[in-house]
């Protein structure tokens, strides 16, 4: 995989950490997923079965899942900016620091493309950081999908690829989890008048 593409995947992840608007965050996620889908299609060249699977996954990850999140955004208009999300620089520092520490600590993985190993870890850590530091429900769901994109990239770099049955099952699982997350997004917005999870602070010991 070309270093430019790998850097672009990481940059898109950091951009999700930084951007303010939920729709922009979803668009960045879609861009990252489409880029990964294009990589999968390039890998599958000459194998019709794998190519068809790669196209299905590209459409699902790059179009259907972001579309589902956009549908949630449409139904959960925010009256004002999410109060707990004002510190862009703090978020970026946390994300860059976490990715750097993880890249330094995680040993070499047995993937076919050593250059992609650090990007896999970076995306996984970015996803976790996004879910931790972003407060809007949609951003936390986007964080989960960024982490899943890291795992998908790992699958692309395994020699011989990951079995198609497993990839399809994972896709179905992603759809199910995102559907449940969408239901939560709607209910949280109904209940609090905002999808700011910073408002969910009733359970403390």
């Amino acid at each position, binding site marked *: 995989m070309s270093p430019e593409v790998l850097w672009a995947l990481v940059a898109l992840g950091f951009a999700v950490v930084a951007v303010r608007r939920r729709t922009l965050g979803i668009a960045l996620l879609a861009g990252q997923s489409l880029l990964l889908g294009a990589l999968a299609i390039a890998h599958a060249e000459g194998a019709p079965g794998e190519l068809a699977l790669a196209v299905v996954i590209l459409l699902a990850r790059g179009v259907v899942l972001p579309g589902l999140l956009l549908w949630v955004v449409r139904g959960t208009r925010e009256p004002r900016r999410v109060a707990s999300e004002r510190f862009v620089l703090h978020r970026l520092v946390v994300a860059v620091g976490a990715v750097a520490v993880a890249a330094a600590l*995680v*040993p*070499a*993985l*047995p*993937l*076919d493309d050593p250059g992609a190993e650090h990007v*896999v870890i970076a995306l*996984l850590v970015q*996803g*976790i950081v996004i*879910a931790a530091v972003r407060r809007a*429900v949609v951003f*936390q769901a986007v*964080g*989960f999908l960024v*982490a*899943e994109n*890291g*795992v998908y990239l*790992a*699958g692309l770099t*395994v*020699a*011989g690829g*990951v*079995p198609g*049955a*497993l990839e399809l*099952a*994972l896709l179905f*699982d992603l759809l*199910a*989890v995102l*559907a*449940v*997350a969408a*239901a*939560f997004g709607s*209910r*949280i917005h109904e*209940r*609090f008048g905002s999808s700011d*999870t910073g408002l*969910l*602070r*009733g*359970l403390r*010991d």
Partner: protein
Amino acid sequence: MTEVLLVAMLASPVIGAGLLALPLSARASRRLNAVLAVAVAAASGAVAVVELTQIGEPLRGSWYAIDPAGAVFLLVIAAVGLMSALASPAYLTGDASGFFAGRRARSAYYAALYLFWAALLALAAVDNLAVAWLLVEATTAASALLVAFSGRAQALEAGWKYLVLTTLGLAVALLGIIVLYAGIAEDGASIAALDWARVHAAAAGIDHTTAVAAVVLLLGGLAAKVGWAPVHNWLPDAHSEAPPPVSALLSAALLPTVMLIAWRVEAALRPATGGAGSGLLLGFGLLSLAVAIPFLWRALPLKRLLAYSSLEHMGILALGIGFVHPIATAGVVLHVAGHALAKSLGFYATISLLRADPRLARRAPRGLVATSRGAAGALTVSLGSLSGLPPSPLFFSEVLILLGGLAAGETAVVVVAAVMLGLGFLGLAHALIEGVVTDAPSRRRPAVPGERRLKLLTAVVAGGLLGLSATVWALPGSRLIADLMGVLG
């Protein structure tokens, strides 16, 4: 014949979910639920008994493999699922949902409950790591909706936290699966490369660094779902906010069953990891005890206290499997079964109590014996057993686990764990005395509904707990433990 039973075991809860999702009257759904619950439990119990009574190889087919460990967990899931399904009508008559639209709430509850139960049963029977991961994720989707069923602000918070933390944890575990697959699969291999037997067979040939990376990612990711500290944050919230029958399933069936997957991973990769996996489990165990015990000393609402007790008991189980010794393994088997019975009873007791006095959802109880002898009796059996008070099976299981640790040469870990278990015992005993026996405020309290049923359930569970205690003399050195060590030792 076995395959027919197995298909019935997995198909009946899925069909049940479909039937109960139909818009039935309350009476019809209650009756259908009772019939289906008995059918699912009977099929699951039959599969487990067939495996446990036959000598030799596990029950194995193209897509399943039920070994002694799977059979023990099937029995636990069947028993807890049956009790939770039968306890659900009492909960549903007392608490309306805010998460689902009013008319659909009951059918949505039953559909999610049965799908959750089906995924748990399949998890104990499935023969493949990747499929097991998918089923763990399926339990998250179904149970997150159940956690938030009441629609209250705290329930939404608990359900969302549970969904986000466990799915992120499972993403980490999935990377572990891919690392493992990359380490063991030949070019063009199928998903069958991740069958447990194949992973066992391939483990000796895996590069040490790859095996350690895989086991750390897998155990670290699954820890978020088991609720081991330090990735346990969702556990107290989800257990305390879920409907009590769901809390029982979460605590008594889900957590130990996901732990079984972690156990299988550690055992399969042990030849290549040089004990890194068992060391990690001991770390999770001690940390979970250290985090849980201070909360057992605090005056918490009942369900929250039971939730922190789950964290403590998952810590004990992590120690038991981390010691990798037959005596500790006997303790783990006894502990899983005893914890399931005692914890479920505690959660079921809260159904009646919360209906009579909803304020108990937010504050610690006092003097329950003056209010409800049924609830007081149930909580005495539950908290007494969970604290490890003899003759509770959990007393014997904890002794077995500690003895196994000593036999395995982990003296320092055993000493620290013994001190923490002693403190945990005192904390729960204190909660039991304060909550049940201490004089209540003199004002009049409303009557507690469902007293007779609760007394009957308490008698059945107490009998079951004593029966488990009686097995302590036969369990270490038994064929069951020898077979378990053959698979997981």
